[in-house]
């Protein structure tokens, strides 16, 4: 029997707000343990949550970007369980009333685009971290992460393969980075994923029994874990056994999934509306204001780059990987007005040097306006492409504007006829033997003289003009002889 894979993902997106979701402590990653704490983070008696509005804005932005309906009347709920990294004994989350519902995300997969349904997006607080110290056989708790805002994005069970799951995750990451609501840094846990997976006979409409793989924190692990789980479930089903509904954990060292202790999954979370937080009412006006502030989304940019700017699909995909890329490109284009050339200089030359230097684009020593100016100079043949590259490298090293470098080094291209002819004559005088041969009919000496002229001009003469003028001068001499 053939089986179809059915996957749904729950992605936790850690938001890049300055402060935590319900208190003023910093939400930054990487502080000393328990540095970013306050009475609420610590779960002290008498502490109360106050909602950080940025979280709501970020949630609405992602909801709008994922075509969701935005709920006007929101409530936060308490989700109870005991664990040392959960200081209040409950997590403040949303339960029956998530802020965003019924959306979709278009996910490019190879040459096609798949639309994956988004069931819901809700706001919640992250837990702290327990660190087990095997040396002292004790556990330590770091509450810096406790209260950092999360959005949980729950997909419909529309994903059909591990590759699609990976592509979906990448698209979510691209989008949250694009919107500037998360750094999407998987190593630091800014993006984590739980995967629900089941198999069903092809053509069947009924879902099979699912398992849930918890806490996958890289694209690779998502795909590996799902591959493993598909094979495991498949072999169970093919040998007539049943899949047991359970929660699994993935061991990246062995590449295998294994069940979590049943104790950890059989919780009754006793959700109820948090009485410390009044209902959150979102007005239409707020949604509009947020909509206005939203950047143009990657898909729209992609379309525009191909259809309006005339770039290739490949170039458009490279430029829309990050909003900072396309924004940089746009500035370069605005100055240079040559999309293809601007794209090449950004995606191959600039990206190459940035990568070598280990820099992000926003740290680029070359400002987009300067690169635009350089591209324009090249495009108008004010300098040659070869010169351009030298100037570019100098710009990258010094951060100077192209004109400064060109002026200092005297690299401006010589295009004036009189100037070029003067240099040609100089070349003729220095090489009387070759000149006689050339005038005598040996046209193969033409490149030799081009080279000589370029050398004498230190490469600043416009090669095309040099080319034409040498021919003209030789013809003159031939006519005279």
């Amino acid at each position, binding site marked *: 029997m053939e089986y179809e894979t059915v996957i749904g993902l729950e992605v936790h997106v850690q938001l890049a707000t300055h402060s935590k979701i319900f208190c003023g402590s910093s939400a930054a990653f990487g502080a000393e343990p328990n540095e970013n704490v306050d*009475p609420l983070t*610590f*779960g*002290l*008696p*008498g*502490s*109360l*949550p*106050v*909602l950080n509005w940025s979280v709501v804005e970020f949630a609405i932005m992602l909801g709008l970007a994922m075509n969701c309906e935005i709920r006007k009347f929101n409530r936060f709920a*308490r989700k*109870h369980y*005991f664990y*040392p990294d959960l*200081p*209040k*004994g*409950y997590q403040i989350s949303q339960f029956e009333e998530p802020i965003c519902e019924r959306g979709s995300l278009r996910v490019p997969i190879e040459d096609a685009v798949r639309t994956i349904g988004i069931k819901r997006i809700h706001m919640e607080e992250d837990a702290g971290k327990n660190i087990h110290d095997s040396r002292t056989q004790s556990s330590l*708790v770091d509450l810096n992460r406790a209260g950092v805002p999360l959005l949980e994005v729950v997909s419909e069970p529309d994903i059909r393969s591990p590759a699609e799951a990976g592509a979906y995750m990448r698209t979510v990451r691209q989008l949250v980075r694009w919107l500037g609501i998360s750094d999407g840094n998987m190593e630091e846990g800014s993006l984590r994923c739980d995967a629900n997976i089941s198999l069903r006979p092809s053509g069947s409409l009924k879902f099979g029994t699912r398992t849930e793989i918890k806490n996958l924190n890289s694209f690779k692990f998502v795909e590996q874990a799902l591959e493993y789980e598909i094979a495991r479930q498949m072999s169970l089903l093919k040998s007539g056994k049943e899949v047991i509904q359970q929660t699994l954990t993935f061991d990246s060292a062995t590449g295998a999934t294994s069940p979590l202790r049943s104790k950890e999954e059989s919780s*009754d979370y*006793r*959700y*109820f509306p948090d*009485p*410390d*937080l*009044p209902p959150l009412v979102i007005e239409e006006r707020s949604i509009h204001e947020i909509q206005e502030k939203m950047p143009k989304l990657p898909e729209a940019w992609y379309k525009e780059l191909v259809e309006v700017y005339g770039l290739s699909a490949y170039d458009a995909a490279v430029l829309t990987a990050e909003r900072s890329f396309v924004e940089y490109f746009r500035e370069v284009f605005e100055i240079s007005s040559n999309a293809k050339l601007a794209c090449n200089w950004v995606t191959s030359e600039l990206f190459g040097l940035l990568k070598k230097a280990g820099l992000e684009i926003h740290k680029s020593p070359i400002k987009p306006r300067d690169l635009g100016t350089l591209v324009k100079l090249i495009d108008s043949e004010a300098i040659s492409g070869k010169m351009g590259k030298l100037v570019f490298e100098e710009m990258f090293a010094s951060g100077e504007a192209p004109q400064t470098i060109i002026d200092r080094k005297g690299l401006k291209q010589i295009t004036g006829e009189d100037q070029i002819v003067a240099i040609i004559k100089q070349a003729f005088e220095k090489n009387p033997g070759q000149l006689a041969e050339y005038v005598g009919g040996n046209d193969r000496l033409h490149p030799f003289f081009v080279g000589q002229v370029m050398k004498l001009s230190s490469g600043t003469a416009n090669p095309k003009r040099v080319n034409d003028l040498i021919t003209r001068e030789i013809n003159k001499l031939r006519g005279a002889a």
Partner: protein
Amino acid sequence: MSDITLLTASEMVSQMRAGQLSCKELCQAFLNKLEKQKGLNSFLTIAPEKVLARAEEAQAKIKAGSKEALLGIPVAVKDMILTKDLKTTCASKILENFIPPYTATCVNNLESRGAVVLGKTNMDEFAMGSSNENSAFGSVKNPWNPECVPGGSSGGSAVAVAARLAPLALGTDTGGSVRQPASFCGIAGMKPTYGRVSRYGVVAFASSLDQVGGFATNVRDLALLMSAVSGHDPMDSTSVKVDVPDFSALLGQDIKGLRLGMPKEYFIEGLSSEVKACIEAALKQLEKLGAKLVEVSLPNTELAVATYYILAPAEASSNLARYDGIRYGHRAKGTHELEELYEVSRSEGFGEEVKRRIMIGTYVLSSGYFDAYYLRAQKVRTLIANDFRTAFAKHCDLIVCPTAPTTAFKIGEKSSDPLAMYLNDIFTIPVNLAGLPGMSIPCGFDQKGLPVGLQLIGKPWDEAGLLKTAYAYESETDWHKRLPKIH
């Protein structure tokens, strides 16, 4: 008058300003009296050095001509309210040695108006109780009869004021915990409108019902205290952005034509005949002052106690989850596993009544029971709130009724019967469920010499109206001037 502890807070303020009394002298007098009256067990923590240091600061300010409303006035604070660097236990073993790193907004408000925190008062553990017998640190005794309970849960604060161990005190009121002990101790007590006083730094019992309230020997002092603690606080999302009028402003105005609603459901079986007689006499007195008495109906009253005992424990079971022995508070010794650490720490740390309510709350929030209990109780809560809304919209400006069905009962009398105990709050609970302001003032004594309280219930934000009415009554009576025998 030679005993300065018998002055009203307002008198203390004016005498201090006039230089007839020093703040240090006043505080020392209360500290001495506290030492003498230790047997009442009304205070859990007193830090005399801190009190005297604060008193000196206040004295310097007074000399410099500062005019803060409560400058130099000692205030007792229920041990449910956090005070930085001063132990706050909630009368629970689980917080026996807890020293808060921050101060509650309401206490900050008092201190910024010049008050001196005298100490922390005894209470029912985590404010769960109506008799103060649920304190992990012993019962509080009623100064009118030490064999009787002072009421609860803010019993220590009520006794502190009744015994003139402090002119003012803060309590918290979740189902009557300020009004009922005020009634049992013969003093004035107010629970303001939900959202009037910040809950930040007030240990949560049932967040949607908890409200900080105050005690005083007389209405004018109570108005002074309530004006000082009230106000919006950005740290408490449930505190409401409404102006705080000077609650004393209307004191002395007449109450002619004021329509006082008497809910027929409150004059029922179970109401002691002596209490009933006192209330009826008080109503006559109010009528004589020009108020009009009208009968009103609050038809869902009988559901209030049941509703409360679903919602309050539900919230409590959640609010008390943080006492897990991990970060602060009592941690059991000798445990080996995490679950065991939680179980033993909490079993050792919490008292019987707290455990009972955590279990009730956990049960009603469990999946499968949530709809039948919690959701249904929320609906009934809405009905109860609507009862009041209708009464105020159509029939009356204020509601008057008994604060409690009986006077103070004997210590031990009801402690083995939680249900009988719960019914003691039958007249106070609906007010919390509806989020309304309510207060209790003394309106007589029973034959055993125990005080009876008259409850006034107002529209949202109408604390000034309640105080005005109470003041009009108080001005015509002298119940509030009687002192318990200890004097």
